[in-house]
């Protein structure tokens, strides 16, 4: 019987740093099988939210439930079902791409031969198999994102949490990654993604939410947003109050 619980359910989630709320009373539900865009200007609280979802940052208050399981009580069970593409590098620079993927596979409980085989296939898919001795330290920014994406799918997760997955990736790589993600959604996976490239979000996502200064300011199906001539960018800029005239700089 299929689980009817949403992929992500957070209620009144807060994260306070000193006297500042990075996330302030976030309540959100992401249905299973949804391609969900989580948008916001810089410093809005997107990355903090993802870190709380995965259990890297404990929330100050509020509750989190992923795939029907409470976090942090069921952290291990949740982590087994999640694929993460973090904003900052959690890569091990002194490993080659193949070694890193094998390591990640084994950390998710895959047997060594299976992890090795999947690592080889993923390297091939992500076109990172050109120089097998190349260390991750020698990767370009786009290559680092690709290896992070490859690592996030090696254990076939049900839920992807992705922080700026396309940042620095070239057009060909980005297209392949998008196709791969869409295919995962078709197979029933859920994707929770942050991105500043609103065209990509508009094209890929079923639903979007906008967070601003730690608070959810809008959540909607992408189809509803497209009513009228407005693009997602228009809606976003209007929602976060970013419309302002470019001041004239005399020296420019």
């Amino acid at each position, binding site marked *: 019987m299929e689980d009817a619980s949403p992929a992500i359910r957070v209620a009144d989630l807060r994260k*306070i*740093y*000193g*006297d*500042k709320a990075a996330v302030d009373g976030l309540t959100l539900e992401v249905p299973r099988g949804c391609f969900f865009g989580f948008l916001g200007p810089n410093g809005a609280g997107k990355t903090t939210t993802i870190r709380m979802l*995965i*259990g*890297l*940052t*404990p929330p*100050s208050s509020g509750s989190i439930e992923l795939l029907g399981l409470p976090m942090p009580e069921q*952290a*291990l*069970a949740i*982590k*087994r079902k999640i694929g*993460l593409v*973090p904003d900052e*590098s*959690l*890569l*091990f*620079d*002194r*490993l*080659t791409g193949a*070694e*890193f993927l094998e*390591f*990640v*596979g*084994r*950390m*998710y*409980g*895959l*047997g*060594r031969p299976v*992890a090795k085989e999947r690592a080889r296939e993923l390297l091939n898919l992500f076109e990172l198999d050109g120089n097998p*001795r190349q*260390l991750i*330290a*020698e990767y370009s920014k786009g290559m680092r994102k690709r290896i992070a994406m490859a690592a996030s799918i090696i254990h076939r997760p049900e839920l992807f949490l992705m922080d700026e997955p396309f940042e620095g990736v070239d057009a060909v790589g980005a297209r392949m990654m998008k196709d791969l993600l869409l295919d995962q959604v078709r197979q029933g996976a859920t994707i929770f993604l942050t991105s500043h490239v609103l065209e990509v979000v508009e094209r890929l996502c079923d639903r979007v939410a906008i967070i601003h200064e730690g608070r959810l300011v809008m959540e909607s199906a992408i189809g509803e947003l497209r009513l009228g001539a407005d693009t997602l960018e228009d809606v976003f800029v209007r929602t976060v109050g970013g419309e302002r005239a470019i001041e004239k700089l005399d020296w420019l």
Partner: protein
Amino acid sequence: MSDPILAILWAQWRTLLNFRRGHGMGSFVLPALAILAWYGTWAMLAVTIGFFVSQPGVRRMLPLVLPNGLLAVFVYWQLTPLLTASMGASIDLRKLLVFPIPARRLFEVEVLLRLSTCIEMMLLVSGLAAGLLVNPALPHRNGTLAFLPFIVFNLLVSAGLRNQMERWMARRRVRELIVLFVLLAAAVPQLLFVTGVPGPLRWFVSAQAQMWWPWSATARLASGEGTAALWLVLLGWTIAALFFGRWQFARSLRFDAAAAESRGRTSGESRPWLDRLYRVPGMLFSDPLAVIIEKELRSLLRTPRFRLVFLMGFTFGVIVFLPIILRRGGGPLPPGDHLAMVSGYALLLLGDVAFWNVFGFDRSAAQLYFLLPMPISRVFAGKNIAALFFVFLEITAIICVWAAFRMPLTAVKAAEAYAVALTFSLYLLGAGNVSSVYYPRAINPERSTGAASAGRLRAMLLLIYPAAAIPILLAYGARYAFESDTAFWSVIAIAAALGAAFYWVALDSALERIERNKDKILRTLSEGEGPVRLS
């Protein structure tokens, strides 16, 4: 199914192998020799102790010597990683927490990695156990098995303390004070040396064997006193250590470093006097040199590791030499030279953060220096001038401490301390500029402890420091040989002139190297670590 611990160890092994591939065998020879010399010495000491305790005649001394010896082992085991600001290998929780690994398994790895901090004590305890095992005068030789729970006890306490320290280190403002407190506590033996051991402490040492401490129980068991009660005591302590270690580790897992860091931070913080200090270079130099110096002053003063080392220079640096300074009848040096000696020691401390790896705190941002429309020599000059500024400040602070404690001080001796520090600095800065481009290493400025320079360089420093000190030693040699201050000042003047020449030659060499190898340098400065963190 794969074991995550094996995967972590395998990844770390690959990381080390790949590091060797990136840096060549040469990178390993010097550190390997230094490691061999260090542990070789401890191994010889262990053999000597083993031989000593294997003699039948030693049995009568064991009740006093063994408990205190094991207490010393315990203190060294727990304190050394803190004192050397080198906490050894530990798992990088930041990177591993995303994986579904039970906390219990992570704790097991953490405890195993604690072995890396006290191989010396493992050697000593092994020598001790082997010696006692073959001692024919001891009744129950299987009592040496007590060393096993004693080692486990130490590993578990060490793991717990490390986790506690790591969390303290993450707390803004508090961390420097805590480290300083620990370091000052470590200077207690020096103070006891000067003041004498107080009565209660003497009683504690003499009554060791009668007490229910883990080291006492181990000592009594190992000496052949095989009672069940002693085993119960030792196992009880080990179980308590297990709870302590796991409790601390669990707290670290839940710990939010970013939240701890944000405590004590006030928004809109403004300190006009500090801002005026930062602006001083602008009055003395023109841009871009002035702005580079200003940037260095700002960023170094905001770097916890730098602040800690700077504080240590005029606190720990003074205390560590107290037995020599306060020794009646004079030590190896005349009393007037102690200030210069402490100043020189402060420079050794500062070296790690101000000389040897000048791009370390900049990390990948160092590439900015290559993009700016100015020669890279300005960057070196700016960083070196900022370092000299802090050297001047450090010596001034030492002089203030000196005056506050009414130690022998005259204006000439103060001038001598500045002159010695400046001359020594010229050699250190020259060598540091070269080492910064040959052995760059990215450093996390937020971490208060850990090595701030590459392993290969740390081995070479054993040669560089004495070599850089030769001109200074010659100046003091001239003073004692000719019994003349004029001879001292003449040699110091020549040493300073030679130091300036050395500085320019070394700078040229560094500039030539950085132009040729900028890619490699920048890549190294951008690198992260493996699943195990070495500090």
